[in-house]
C-alpha cells in the first residue's frame, strides 16, 4: 500500500513538473536570450548566455522610452481605477439601500450591460472619443475606462453592501450626519475588503489592456508599455535581443505586482466565481 502511494505521488509530481516546465518555457527562453548578442542567439538559442549583455536592456529602455511609457501606464491605471472605485462605491451603496423601482431599474441596466462585448462598441466609442476631443489624452482615456468598468464594480459593491448591517448608518443619520459624510466616514472604510479586490483586478485590466489604447492613443509620447512594446516589435522584427529584452521589461512590473498581491488576486478569482 505504501509503495503504491509512493508511485502515485511520483507520477503525479512528475507530470506536474513537466507541465511547469512547459508553462515557464517561453518566459525562460525570453529571459536567457535577452542577455545574448544577436550572433550568439543565432548560433544557439538553448544555451545560457556566455556573458550577460545588459546593454541590450539599456538600449531597449532608450528605444521604447521605457520610463515614459511606464509612467504613462501608471498614470492611466491610477486615474482610471480611482474614478471607478469612487463612482461605483457611491452608486453601489445607494443602489443597495434604496428600495424603489428606479433603483432596481438602474441596477438592472448596469448588470445587463456587462454582457456587451467590447468589440461591438469600439467603433461608436471611437466616435465619442473623437467628438469629445479626448483622443491621445490619458485623462480622457481613464474616463473611458471608468465608464466601461463601473458596471462590474457596482455589481460587486452592491453585493457587499447587502452584508453590512444598516444600524450604523441609521444611527449616524439620526445624529444629523449628511449622506455624503456618512459615506466617507462610515461606509467607505467598511468597504475596504471589496475595494481591494476591485482595485487589484481593475489595475490589472487597465495595465494589460491593449485594444482600447491601440485605438485611442496614436501619439507615441502618450504610449502605454504595451503600445511601445508593440511598436518596437514592428520596427525591429528580426532584432530578437532587443525585442526579448523589451518583453521582459514589459513583464517585470506585473510580475512584481503578482508577487506582492498574489494572495488577494487568487482569492479574488475564487470568490468572484462562487458569487457569479
Amino acid at each position: 500500500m505504501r509503495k503504491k502511494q509512493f508511485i502515485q505521488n511520483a507520477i503525479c509530481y512528475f507530470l506536474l513538473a513537466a507541465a511547469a516546465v512547459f508553462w515557464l518555457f517561453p518566459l525562460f527562453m525570453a529571459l536567457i536570450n535577452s542577455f545574448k548578442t544577436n550572433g550568439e542567439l543565432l548560433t544557439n538559442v538553448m544555451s545560457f548566455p556566455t556573458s550577460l549583455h545588459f546593454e541590450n536592456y539599456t538600449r531597449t529602455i532608450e528605444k521604447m522610452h521605457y520610463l515614459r511609457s511606464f509612467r504613462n501606464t501608471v498614470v492611466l491605471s491610477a486615474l482610471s481605477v480611482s474614478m471607478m472605485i469612487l463612482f461605483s462605491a457611491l452608486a453601489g451603496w445607494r443602489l443597495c439601500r434604496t428600495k424603489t423601482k428606479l433603483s432596481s431599474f438602474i441596477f438592472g441596466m448596469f448588470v445587463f450591460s456587462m454582457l456587451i462585448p467590447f468589440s461591438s462598441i469600439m467603433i461608436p466609442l471611437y466616435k465619442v472619443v473623437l467628438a469629445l476631443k479626448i483622443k491621445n489624452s490619458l485623462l480622457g482615456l481613464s474616463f473611458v475606462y471608468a465608464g466601461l468598468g463601473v458596471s462590474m464594480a457596482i455589481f460587486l459593491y452592491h453585493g457587499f453592501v447587502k452584508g453590512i448591517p444598516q444600524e450604523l448608518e441609521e444611527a449616524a443619520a439620526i445624529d444629523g450626519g449628511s449622506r455624503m459624510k456618512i459615506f466617507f466616514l462610515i461606509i467607505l472604510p467598511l468597504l475596504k475588503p471589496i475595494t481591494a479586490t476591485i482595485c487589484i483586478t481593475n489595475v490589472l485590466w487597465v495595465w494589460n489592456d491593449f485594444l482600447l489604447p491601440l485605438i485611442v492613443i496614436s501619439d507615441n509620447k502618450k504610449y502605454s508599455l504595451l503600445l511601445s512594446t508593440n511598436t518596437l516589435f514592428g520596427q525591429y522584427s528580426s532584432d530578437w535581443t532587443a525585442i526579448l529584452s523589451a518583453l521582459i521589461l514589459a513583464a517585470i512590473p506585473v510580475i512584481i505586482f503578482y508577487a506582492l498581491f498574489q494572495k488577494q488576486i487568487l482569492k479574488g478569482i475564487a470568490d468572484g466565481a462562487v458569487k457569479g
Partner: protein
Amino acid sequence: MSAKKKENLSLLVFCAPALMVYIIFKLFPAISGVFYALTDWNGLNKTYHFIGIENFVELTGDRHFWRSMLFTLKYVAVLLITANSSALLLAVFIESRPKGKGFFRTLFYMPNMISMIIGGYMWNFIFTRVLYYMADNWGMKFLDRSWIGDPKYSFAAIIIVASWGVAGYLMIIYMAALQGVPSHLIESAKLDGATSLQCFFKVTMPMIRHALTICIFWTLNSGFQVFDVIYSLTGGGPGRATQSAAINIYEEAFSGNIRYGYATAKSTVLFLIVLIITVIQLNLMKKGEQEL
C-alpha cells in the same frame, strides 16, 4: 415632495458620476452603434447617410467576414476543450497531493498576469526560432514546420498559446470548487469499490458542475472577443487565414478601409451571435444543474 421621490432624488445624486461615464462611454456607444450600422459613415467623408439595411445585405456576401466568424467559432470550440480540460487536469492533480499546492497554483496562474500581447510575442520567438533549433539539433523533426506561416499549423499554435494563457485562471476556479467536495463522499465511494476514475466522473464531476458552468461561460465570452493573442502571434495571417471576427472588424475600421458604418454592422452581428450562444449555454447548463 414625498419620501419616495426624495429617496429617488438622493439616489440619482449618488449615481450621477457613475451614470455619467457609463452613459457616455458604454450605453450611448452600444445604442448608437445600431444606428451607425444603418449608415455609410466612414473616415473620409464629413457627412453620412442613412442607407437602411444595405450594410447587412453586403455583409451576407462578405466572404472574409464569414470566414473570420467561422474561424472564431472553431477557435472557441477547440479552446473550450483544451483550456478547460488542461485546467481541470491541473486542478485535480494539484488538489490530490498534499504538498506543493501554493507553489503550483502560483506558477500556473502566472501567464494570466502578463498581457497576451507580451505572452504572444514570447511564443512568437519560440515558434520562429526555438522550435527550429530543437528540430535541427535535437532530432525532433516533427517540430520542423512553419508554425506561424502555414495556416494548417498556425491554428494549433494559436490554440496552444491561448490555452497556456487562460488555463491558470480556470484552474483557480476548479481548485476552489474541488475544495468544496467533501472528502468523506469520495472515501465512501472508494469503500464501495469504485475506481478513482469512477469516483471522479460519478462523484466529483457532478459536485463541481457549477464551476464548469462558470468556466465555460467565461471561455465562451472571452473567446469570441479574441484579439491580443492572434494579433501578436500571427497578426491574422498568413493572408487572412487566422483572422478572428474582432480582428476582421478592427481591420475594417482602423487599418486601411476606415468603413466605420460597415464595420459597426459587423460588430452588431457578432454581438447577436455571442448573445444567442451565451443564452443557450446558460439555459442548458442551468437545466443540467437542476436535474442533479
